């Protein structure tokens, strides 16, 4: 953890095109699933946007709505089994309510998805080359042999050795890391402008994980695509993202530039995420603090702030506000680029004096000094 808290912005990371157009705009998105037990409110009133060349990290625990919201971007929810409201615009085109034909032209072409577990996400009965070639031929009118050549080229590009002979292999003949590379090759075959990577490294071991993340960054530089990386791993976010969105119970609870958000988190749930991360370089005094309790039911979400039943700082908010009123998603003390959904008035002080000493005592001084100079953070990332 210490690493990314103190690291400067990665040198290799592309800087977002200044003033670039938003490629993806999600506005007030809600996704609900009617079930026998009632309405599951998986995503509530979610808004974010991504520019070309930029990486957005969406963080949250299982069931926080991060995958559900990103699947909505490709219109992957069965309209008979789900209710979507709000607006999702890909390059200006509205996704919600769009025809199957419109969606098909976007899927895999303008927006491609990399799924979590490549063993189950790749068809077991078709060769890797056939699956990549199919993705290419859907959006390009070319012969099978041309598609095959393209598949070989892509496999080579993502670092599969002997791509020419491996192209006819089946997914089960690839190792986990190679499968994920093949999955990435398939996603990139049509030069998508936006790549949604849904926990792309969760099924992989740490070394391979690092390789895959490097590969994604490298490809992003070459293809200049926007990336949404969905993860529950803050390490991945620190490595990859320019901007972070923290989700809880289907809502955005904190959002800001990566470095800003990770060094000065303002929402107790984000503190919890940071506290529960193990760190080999930290002093042995640092404790690993899990977030107490369980993720809330999306059938009957808690009243007020959805995090209040698990929040250790409820008593610092006057009255019953946390239990009765949902906090708005507003800029906190640190400027307009850093949004949070929390009733706490002085989160930065609480973080520096109560949370940080527990998880990273060596950083307290730094952060306190930083807090005194709020403008510093603003200047670095600009207004959003």
């Amino acid at each position, binding site marked *: 953890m210490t690493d990314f808290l103190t690291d400067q912005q990665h040198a290799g990371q592309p800087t977002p095109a200044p003033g670039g157009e938003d490629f993806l705009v999600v506005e007030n998105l809600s996704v609900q699933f009617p079930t026998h037990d009632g309405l599951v409110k998986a995503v509530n009133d979610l808004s974010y946007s991504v520019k070309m060349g930029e990486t957005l990290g969406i963080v949250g625990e299982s069931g926080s709505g991060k995958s559900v919201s990103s699947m909505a971007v490709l219109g992957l929810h069965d309209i008979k089994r789900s209710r979507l409201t709000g607006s999702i615009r890909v390059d200006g085109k509205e996704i919600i309510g769009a025809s199957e034909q419109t969606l098909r032209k976007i899927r895999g072409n303008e927006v*491609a998805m990399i799924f979590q577990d490549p063993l189950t996400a790749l*068809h077991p009965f078709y060769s890797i080359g056939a699956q990549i070639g*199919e993705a290419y031929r859907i959006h390009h009118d070319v012969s099978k042999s041309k598609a095959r050549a393209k598949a070989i080229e892509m496999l080579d590009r993502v670092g599969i050795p002997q791509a020419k002979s491996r192209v006819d292999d089946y997914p*089960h003949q690839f190792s986990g890391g190679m499968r994920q590379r093949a999955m990435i090759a398939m996603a990139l075959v049509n030069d998508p402008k936006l790549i949604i990577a849904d926990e792309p490294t969760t099924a992989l071991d740490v070394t391979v994980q690092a390789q895959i993340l490097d590969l994604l960054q490298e490809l992003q530089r070459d293809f200049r695509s926007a990336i949404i990386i969905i993860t529950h791993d803050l390490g991945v976010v620190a490595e990859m993202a320019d901007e972070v969105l923290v989700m809880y119970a289907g809502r955005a609870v904190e959002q800001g530039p990566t470095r800003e958000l990770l060094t000065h988190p303002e929402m107790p749930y984000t503190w919890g995420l940071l506290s529960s991360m193990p760190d080999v370089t930290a002093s042995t005094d640092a404790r690993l603090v899990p977030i107490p309790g369980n993720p809330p039911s999306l059938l009957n979400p808690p009243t007020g702030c959805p995090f209040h039943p698990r929040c250790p700082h409820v008593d610092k908010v006057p009255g019953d506000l946390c239990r009765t009123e949902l906090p708005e998603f507003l800029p906190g003390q640190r400027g307009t680029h850093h949004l949070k959904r929390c009733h706490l008035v002085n989160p930065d002080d609480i973080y520096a004096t109560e949370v940080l000493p527990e998880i990273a005592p060596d950083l307290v001084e730094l952060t306190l000094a930083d807090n005194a100079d709020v403008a510093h953070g603003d200047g670095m990332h600009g207004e959003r």
Partner: protein
Amino acid sequence: MAGFIIRRVISSFLVVVLTSMFVFALFFLGPSNPAGPVCEASGKCTAERLALIEEQMGLNESVVTQYGAFAKGIFVDRTITIGSEYDCDAPCLGISYGTRGQVTDELLEKYPATLSIAIGGAMIYLTLGVILGVLAARWRGTAADRLLVGGSLLVSSVPYYLFALLAWIFLTLQWSIFPSTGYTPLTENPGAWFAGLLLPWVVIGVTFSTQYARFTRGSMVETLGEDYIRTATAKGVKSNKVVFKHGLRAAIVPIVTIFGLDFAALLAGTVFTERIFNINGVGWWALNSIQSPQDFPVITATVLVSAVLVVVANLLVDVIYSFLDPRVRMS
């Protein structure tokens, strides 16, 4: 791959040999004396005559010797004495007590009828069942799905013989919608062959298809929930192609297994179908041979042929399976 097939062929062969021993032992060591029907068929059966016939038929020899003679007959011509002497050309499965003809010849004569019924019926039930199942899976939860599932349950809850009998009585006798049934060899008159088998095909096709529809539906519903189906959609594959290419390709594998065994059962003779539709096939032949006076060589032959068919079907299923599923092919 070749090694896998060779291993399977060898083990299948062993199974067939063991089955033939078992069948042989079952009938020749069973409670009734094979010489009995032969003795009774030729007038009054005295104890001396029975003993003579037993002696002639070699029933006094040890079982092993008898089985040896039987097994040898499959590869070389032999002479069998039942009252008088009969030549039995290889592959010899014995001489029928009833007709005194060679069992192998009769088998070859009756087999085309059974084969015709089985192939036609199987083609209908497989196509119909799989298509209905895929559609039901695709529209799962809708009224169309419930109608398909309910209808298939209803049809499959009617006993097959009743369904076949009613179909024949109403569709052929009463309303003459279908031509009268029976078997004409294909080589003799293709039109008559087709007309005579049409109703049996439809009846087998419809009744069996319900089971396949439900099975396919289950397999498809499971497959359509797989991650790789979502991947296909996310690539921009048309939804029809997602279902029929990506979905069915995976869902068909377990159906092939069941189909192989069902088809073998159908090939072994469909007693009801042949009786009701008046088709002189293997099933009817086998049924007649167990009725008194029992025709032991025919019983042995039909059971043995059924066993071989089941074993061969299993073998074929394994081979097809390895072509369908690359994960099996490689290992």
